[in-house]
């Protein structure tokens, strides 16, 4: 589509949501982007005004509007703080897709989403290949955090300190599982998510260890695909829908009490975004999504709320751990107490809060690739808050946040390790 009238028509469908913004500007108080730039087009009110302007022909340049929309972490701080409950993230996700359908997807993204991500077999194969050769062009950066850096890859990844791909991805170690409920009487469907499958496999192993310890049955089907949020955040609705369908297929026929993921972003996507966009799918797919979303839970919340875990008192020599609240956990799903409780289940750790624990880490998925400087500036503040807490460990329930925080700590030469609450709990078992 490159027809302006079609663009206006599609934006017109957002009108009922756009008009609910009363321009009070309260989003300025919480937006990480606006906090850095002080520019109105960086805050939700400005972006909504631009979309309304575009829809009503007061703004003529869709390319500029698309650029401003991309300057957003989709952290949802604005939506969580909005006095009138404007569904800001829903609006921005839909608007990004509308603008991409008008202007097309950049070639690089086409290649990544349509050529690779939507083809799980190929994606797994490529990543597996990369994991074998990555040692050749990377060098260790920080042994406490487990990061590396790379001169050779500098044009692509910049100055980042990153975690290497796992030698054996989780899906190779556990191609599929279907174990019955044990003493807990509960069974989960387990959706590890791409980063746990390919990079943070320890979180996946820890999760399975915890399930086994508590007698929780596990349905881990083969053929799982990405949850779809990276494609969707870039406005690639087609790839997103393909990925959702692949997952519906993979989980078809499984019976379980809850679908859990150790990734805050995957959880929020399955629980919130899948139903929000399900009207683009068939009635039977809509039904399946509704049922799946209703059962989807954050893994910390599942363990604490469903199994009713009661933490012991911390030991005298407990290691201090500070907690970062992923936006997709606290702001999207209202989960913040449970990860802390799960950490406290290991008496060798004691939680020590940092300032601004629920402020975005600056990752924002592909935002960190498209806007690396802004991402690092916001990340540096998170790093400073972690450092100032004096904690020896930082824990967070989202692998994407873990990647960003590891990068920032490692670049600062900090010796603070980064863990998932599941890993901390599993250490005690």
């Amino acid at each position, binding site marked *: 589509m490159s027809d302006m009238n079609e663009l206006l028509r599609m934006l017109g469908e957002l009108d009922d949501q756009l008009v*609910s913004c009363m321009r009070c500007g309260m989003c300025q108080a919480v937006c990480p982007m606006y906090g850095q730039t002080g520019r109105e087009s960086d805050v939700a009110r400005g972006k909504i005004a631009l979309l309304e302007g575009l829809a009503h022909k007061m703004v003529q340049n869709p390319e500029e509007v698309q650029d401003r929309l991309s300057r957003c972490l989709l952290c949802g701080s604005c939506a969580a703080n909005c006095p009138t409950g404007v569904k800001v993230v829903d609006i921005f996700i839909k608007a990004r897709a509308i603008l991409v359908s008008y202007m097309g997807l950049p070639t690089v993204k086409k290649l990544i989403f349509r050529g690779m991500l939507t083809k799980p077999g190929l994606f797994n194969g490529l990543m597996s290949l990369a994991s074998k050769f990555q040692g050749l062009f990377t060098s260790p950066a920080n042994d406490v955090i487990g990061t590396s850096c790379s001169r050779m890859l500098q044009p692509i990844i910049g100055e980042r300190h990153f975690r290497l791909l796992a030698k054996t991805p989780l899906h190779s170690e556990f191609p599929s599982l279907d174990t019955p409920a044990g003493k807990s009487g509960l069974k989960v469907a387990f959706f590890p998510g791409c980063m746990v499958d390919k990079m943070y496999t320890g979180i996946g192993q820890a999760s399975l260890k915890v399930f086994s310890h508590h007698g929780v049955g596990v349905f881990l089907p083969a053929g799982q695909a990405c949850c779809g949020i990276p494609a969707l955040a870039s406005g690639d609705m087609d790839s997103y829908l393909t990925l959702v369908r692949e997952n519906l297929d993979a989980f078809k026929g499984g019976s379980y009490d809850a679908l859990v993921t150790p990734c805050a972003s995957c959880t929020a996507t399955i629980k919130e975004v899948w139903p929000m966009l399900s009207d683009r799918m068939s009635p039977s797919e809509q039904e399946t999504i509704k049922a799946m979303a209703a059962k989807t839970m954050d893994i910390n919340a599942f363990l604490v709320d469903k199994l009713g875990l009661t933490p012991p008192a911390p030991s005298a020599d407990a290691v201090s751990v500070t907690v970062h609240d992923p936006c997709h956990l606290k702001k999207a799903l209202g989960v913040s107490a449970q990860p802390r409780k799960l950490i406290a289940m290991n008496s060798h750790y004691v939680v020590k809060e940092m300032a601004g624990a629920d402020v975005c880490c600056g990752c924002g998925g592909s935002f960190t690739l498209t806007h690396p400087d802004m991402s690092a500036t916001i990340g540096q503040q998170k790093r400073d808050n972690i450092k100032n807490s004096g904690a020896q460990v930082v824990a967070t329930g989202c692998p994407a946040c873990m990647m960003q925080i590891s990068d920032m700590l490692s670049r600062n030469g900090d010796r603070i390790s980064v863990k998932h609450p599941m890993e901390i709990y599993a250490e005690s078992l």
Partner: protein
Amino acid sequence: MNDALKKDFEALVGKENVMESESDRFSYAYDAAVLDPVLPGLVVRPETREAMGRVVKLANDNGLPLTVRGSGTNLSGGTIPKLGGLVVLTNALNKILEINEADLYAIVEPGVITAKFAAEVAARGLFYPPDPGSQAVSTMGGNVAENAGGLRGLKYGVTKDYVMGVDFFDVDGELVKSGSRTVKCVTGMNLHGLMVASEGTLGVFEKITLKLVPPPQAQKAMMAIFDDVNKACETVAAIIAAKIVPATLEFMDNFTIRTVEDFAHVGLPVEAQALLLIEVDGHPGQVAEEAEKVEAICKKMGAQRIQVAKDAAERNKVWEARRAALSALARLSPTTVLEDATVPRSKIPAMMVALENIAQKYKLTIGTFGHAGDGNLHPTILTDRRNKEEWKRVEEAIDDIFDVALGLGGTLSGEHGIGIAKSKYMEKETNRATILFSRRLKKAIDPKGILNPGKIVGE
């Protein structure tokens, strides 16, 4: 905007602080008022006070309209660049320059955020009382330019009661100094007084000196529940007549009560026709005594029930209900028109009756809450600005609200300002001579009419 002029602005504030793309300019075409956006020609964001002065001079030299903008939260269109031209942002001038605990004053740049300032003051054991609803994002410059109010107006006054001095740039970019750090100061004309509520039409603020006070040692909040709006209104008068000045004395009508309860589930009595939310503060002994007296007055005036907050959590619950009022109402419809016509507090019962009649006459939903203690009610019209026919009725209802308020000896705006939204009503409240005097005053200080043209007194 011609290229040479743009380059001149870039030389003054840096290229990164000059915005000229359509999207950037459109982001400064509106504020929180329900009005049509107007696109500025250029937006600049000076990072130093000196650069701000030079921007003003350059604009004046070129006869370019100049609208100063803080966070753009005002409800009267004061920051909409009515004639286009230049929007100048103050949000890079965000330093608290001094908080003086010995002499009880603070000096701030205009872009300091109100809530951040209040928190910084509180951290030093002092108190800056004005608390406009937008304080989490509003700027001190904006508060002074609009003379912002808030919930504490009755006892503590509004922004103007805390402005000890304003240094501002005249249209030639020359720095004009007014006021002082001292409680008393009669040196020269009260120019800083002139700057308060001037809505950016007379000068551009460079820094502001503000009065601080010691904080109250204790507070007590309560909620009084009435089956009759009149009884609630009479209770307000009776409390004041008993020589008690509560820190806050807020009112909610039945529609607002039901809406808030639906939304926030804070345990409000949905059958009540009116609620008063009252807080007294001060020395613990005085607070205890006044709270008792207020409770007795409420009972005597016919309150069905009075709930006194026993601890901080209960107190918070009372105010949570009040804070939720606007959000809860605003969720009911696409467009929310928040009015602030204000009457002498003894006229609140009459105002409430009139508002009910207006809602019926124009078939509109109006929820009313607000600062009963100072007569500043917020009739909130719930509508959809896309519905042309209904919007016409809304505009007529607003006209009626103003007529009634003025008829009761009240005023057009208690705290939201005149801006574009209410300038056409100015003469109704004042007279021709007042408008002409104001225009002559402006003409004398701003001969080319560059400073926020079209606001307050039109033209």
